[in-house]
């Protein structure tokens, strides 16, 4: 181990620390592998992780009362599920009165096979969060969509840890008005972009990277995303560097 007084040793130590912090910021879940969103195309290349990592909690904010965020989250779930994975959709009864139920025929049209979808409807938010944690920790469902109101930082952190433990993806759906801090690895703001199915996306990753796309399309035949419009200006900037003093 180099001593701190030695110049080269200090540089090596700093490099080591930077690498460690980089790993922490990217999230341990990155070790569980990432899933390609558009087959390694421009979308994947623009993401800080080269794809979207499993073993992590991703947050999708729904703008307004529309279902655009839900459609995007469902598409992400399809990517995570691959050919044979199972998708859990966990919601509360009260939430479903507010925003409706997941409707399998529509999801089938998007590419999510209802035979691989399990819909878990809990009476209370507490039970829904418990179910989400159980599902994530079990490592069984390839993707778990979680539609629960009022997920605070502590609950979010628990979900993130459960996702890391199970090595699978959690997708937390949140109303857009809640902008408080979150433990999720990636936070997506979604707005519809006609003609459908397509979305305007804004991503904020843990660690500070921000990206924006005017139009990302979903191909329900190949079950892949497609970048339709050029990336917005923000992504051309290099990822923000953080100084470790």
């Amino acid at each position, binding site marked *: 181990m180099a001593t701190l007084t030695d110049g080269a040793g200090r540089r090596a130590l700093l490099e080591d620390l930077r690498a460690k912090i980089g790993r922490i910021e990217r999230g341990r879940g990155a070790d569980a592998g990432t899933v390609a969103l558009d087959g390694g195309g421009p979308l994947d290349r623009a993401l800080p992780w080269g794809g979207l990592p499993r073993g992590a909690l991703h947050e999708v904010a729904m703008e307004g009362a529309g279902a655009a965020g839900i459609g995007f989250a469902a598409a992400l779930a399809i990517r995570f599920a691959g050919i044979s994975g199972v998708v859990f959709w966990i919601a509360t009864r009260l939430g479903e009165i507010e925003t409706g139920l*997941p409707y399998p025929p529509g999801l089938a049209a998007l590419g999510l096979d209802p035979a691989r979808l399990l819909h878990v409807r809990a009476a209370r938010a507490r039970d829904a969060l418990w179910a989400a944690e159980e599902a994530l920790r079990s490592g069984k469902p390839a993707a778990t969509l979680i539609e629960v109101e009022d997920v605070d930082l502590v609950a979010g952190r628990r979900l993130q840890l459960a996702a890391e433990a199970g090595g699978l993806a959690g997708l937390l759906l949140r109303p857009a008005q809640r902008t408080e801090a979150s433990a999720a690895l990636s936070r997506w703001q979604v707005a519809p972009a006609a003609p459908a199915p397509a979305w305007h996306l804004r991503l904020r990753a843990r660690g500070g990277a921000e990206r924006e796309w005017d139009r990302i399309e979903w191909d329900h035949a190949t079950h892949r995303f497609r970048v339709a419009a050029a990336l917005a200006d923000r992504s051309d900037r290099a990822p923000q560097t953080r100084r470790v003093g």
Partner: protein
Amino acid sequence: MWLPRLPTDRIERLRPGASAEPRATVLTEGHRRRLAAVNRAAAAAGLVPGLGLAEAEARVPELFVHPATPEEDRAALRRLAFWCGRWSPWTAVDGEDGLWLDVTGAAHLFGGEAALLAEIAARLRGLGFAARLAIADTPGMAWAFARFADGGGKGASVVPAGGRDGLFALPVAALRLAEALVADLARLGFGTVGDLALQPRAALARRFGREIGRRLDQALGRIDEPIDPLAPPATLRIRQAFAEPVSAPEDIARIARDLTEALARRLGDAAEGARRLAFQLFRVDGSLAEIEIGTVRPSRDARHLFRLLAEKLESLDPGFGADMALIEARASEPLGPAQMALAGAGRIAGDDGGEDADMAALLDRLIGRLGGAAVARYAPRESHIPERALRRADPLGDAPTGSDAWRLDPPRPIRLFARPEPVEAVAELPDGPPAFFRWRKIGRRVRRAEGPERIAAEWWREAEDAPARDYYRIEDDSGRRYWLYRDGPATPEGARWFLHGLFG
């Protein structure tokens, strides 16, 4: 088992020293108030049930009187019957004051019939109940001896059954005949069961009906008389008794785990898996607390089964303590060793397409806590009505899969409202889509609309005149997409519009 003084025993249990004083429960019939039950002290003073209250109080001025509570007495008897499940799963209530216990084949577990009876009598005495027990080959004989042997009503708690000869020596009432019939027989000089048994059957039947013959045959075992058990009989039971009453949660959890592991081993020996499991605590006050769990697939994985039990253990109230715990498999299915491994096709799968024990375990946990209705998987159903186009399917079984099973055209929304929400819409007459609509107090301008898609009511299900719905896929100027329909044809007064779903 006969509990002759159940009502007063119940009262006396709660009041130490109460049995020394004469007590009675009183039933009010119309204007008359009569004694319903009397305790030993009251009986010794000459009071009997049926006596008018005024006269009773005249005879025994220091009598304590309590209102009769037959419903609660019945409930207490039931609870006791369940508690007797510690000796045998086949327990039943007999009338207002008796209990049946079928201990066929189980007496050896308790050291033989005599020891079993002694233990039961001692426990009941300890709980404060006066009881007379008899064990015999048939229910009829046991009933007769418990109630009528040894002069009936006094003396030892355990009555030795004397077999056929003993039965014949008992009074006629020991045959469970109606009171009126017993009175008739007495007048005619039939004193004991033996007197009746010696008569030719045909003559008895002509004179008194077939009941005497039937009861005789039941008591002697010529006709079968099965007992209808209160609790569903279990296939496997393992019990554990404790020297000291247990009430600490950690202890109960440990006991539950030990019993679960023992049960899992027995299930393995029998090559079975449990589908329904119950864990019971027998409390020292003579009552029973139990929890039950179920599984989606038969399982003998002790860890998994205990985890399901652990979820509900908190709701078990040990009261003042439990002196016995019992685990039983209430439903089980064959589960060979090969089935524990992955097998099967077309099911909710892990990565290798096989049936997944871990997934079943996860579903068991979710269903255990949230209830079976909370976890659903959907299969398509042939119906044009959107809310009826799907049905629930078995979470783990085969389900129609792939795009062939679901109609993908015309397009359907990804969210559906169980109750369509009314919207105010402005639309062109007669059949045009809305140009503007207000939903949840926000006005939205329509940029594009597709439709109409007419979905008529299913005439074989609903009233003839249920209106057809015209559905439109609407996009507003912010790009959001909605699924609206008009209920019925547009009229000059305006039609009713509803929002049924949202597109992503």
